[in-house]
């Protein structure tokens, strides 16, 4: 176990021997799945705890009312029409209806106690996010491998996916996401670091140089953005043409 940790940590500092050791381990694809799953679950631990606490807590109607008032005041600064006394009166009347409605809805009970329902929902969301991370790793990895092959590199799909799964380790910085101010910067550092590990893993596995490896890693993202834009434009064009 300690040698596994050492390998994973050395992989994050782009040490060639760590990639070699990782490649020699049996069932690389299965290891990749387990690695992504474990790291995603760990990185989502804080969000899971926050979600659980939020869901288990009874709804605070006064807090919601305060939030709605704050929202209205903020909007009023941008839309002067909302400062009109008639609009304010209408808004107050609506809030007088909505706040008790939220309170009544919140008091409707599920058959299971609130704590257990909250636990189920939080665990469900936590596991779902980890499964989405695995789906992303599989899809993006397959697309990168297509570009790798087009650039003259070569690798077998399961081994390739197993090798590039190492990219997920810097994602552990996501654990620090809730830290005020610093959290966002750390997540950004983790993302850039993950891309560096991904490029290194691609280069190591496929025999491509670092330049083409970087291109192989970035190209699917650019192509997906381009396709999204083209589909969006085509849709807009079609709607304009029709109506």
């Amino acid at each position, binding site marked *: 176990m300690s040698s596994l940790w050492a390998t994973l940590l050395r992989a994050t500092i782009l040490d060639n021997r760590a990639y070699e050791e990782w490649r020699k381990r049996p069932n690389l694809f299965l290891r990749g799945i387990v690695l992504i799953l474990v790291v995603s679950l760990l990185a989502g631990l804080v969000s899971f705890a926050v979600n659980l606490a939020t869901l288990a807590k009874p709804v605070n109607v006064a807090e919601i009312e305060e939030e709605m008032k704050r929202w209205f005041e903020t909007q009023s600064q941008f839309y002067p029409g909302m400062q009109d006394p008639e609009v304010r009166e209408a808004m107050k009347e609506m809030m007088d209806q909505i706040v008790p409605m939220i309170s009544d809805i919140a008091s*409707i009970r599920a058959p299971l106690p609130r704590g257990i329902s909250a636990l*189920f929902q939080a665990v*469900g969301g936590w596991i*779902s996010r980890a499964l989405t991370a695995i789906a992303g790793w599989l899809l993006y990895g397959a697309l990168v491998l297509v570009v790798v092959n087009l650039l003259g590199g070569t690798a077998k*799909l399961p081994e390739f996916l197993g090798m590039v799964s190492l990219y997920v380790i810097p994602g552990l910085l996501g654990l620090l996401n809730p830290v005020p101010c610093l959290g966002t910067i750390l997540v950004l550092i983790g993302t850039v670091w993950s891309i560096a590990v991904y490029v290194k893993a691609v280069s190591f596995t496929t025999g491509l140089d670092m330049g083409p490896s970087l291109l192989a890693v970035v190209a699917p993202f650019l192509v997906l953005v381009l396709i999204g834009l083209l589909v969006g434009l085509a849709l807009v064009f079609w709607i304009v043409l029709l109506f």
Partner: protein
Amino acid sequence: MEGIVHSLRLGWRALLLKEEAYQEMKASSNPVVKGLVLIIVVGAVIALVGLVGTVLEWASTPDLQEIKDTVHAYLLDMPWWDEMPPQALEQFEQWYELGWRVFPSLFGAPNIGSAALGIITMPVGLVIRWLIYGLLAYLFARWLGGTANLSETLGVLALAVAPQAVNILRLFPFVQAGNLVAVWGILCAYVGLKTAHKLSWERAVWATVLPFLLVMVVAALTGCLVSALIAVAVKGG
């Protein structure tokens, strides 16, 4: 029973994208029957597990009928009704009822009845998808120079149902595994087609995605046709 256990083991190796699992399926005496049994077993087990998860989800969700009635009562109390014509209330009632029939299921509200029905519809749906995709993939693979016959193609593509095993996690309520099952299934289909038809990677990619592209093009053209008909009707009206 031994045959089913063997098929499940084969499915596990296929899930790990091991080419030898697909070769073994191709070489088996009756790959279509073997594949069909695997799909039915996996589909029924997943649906059973899904039923348990749905019951737990239902037990964790507040009564939707009660929410519907509460919201309805408050909405009818809103001051704006005084300024509305009487038929507006009638129209609102119709849309409100329709909305509550459509939206809860769209947003994944637990439905024990349809989850129970899934024990039949899930395996049937998987078999239909397998046959349609298998036939299209076979035609494209042969067109691209593949060598396997239809029976072998259907056999290896039955192994692409293996990622449905991820849905076992739906035993935990509120777990969603949709994208993962689809993406993993496509990768399994790619390895299966490449192995069975002895295709190069480029041709195997095309044989895998062309059936989806064909369906997407047909759906897009149908969408265009329907929207054009609606536009003509609106303009005409």
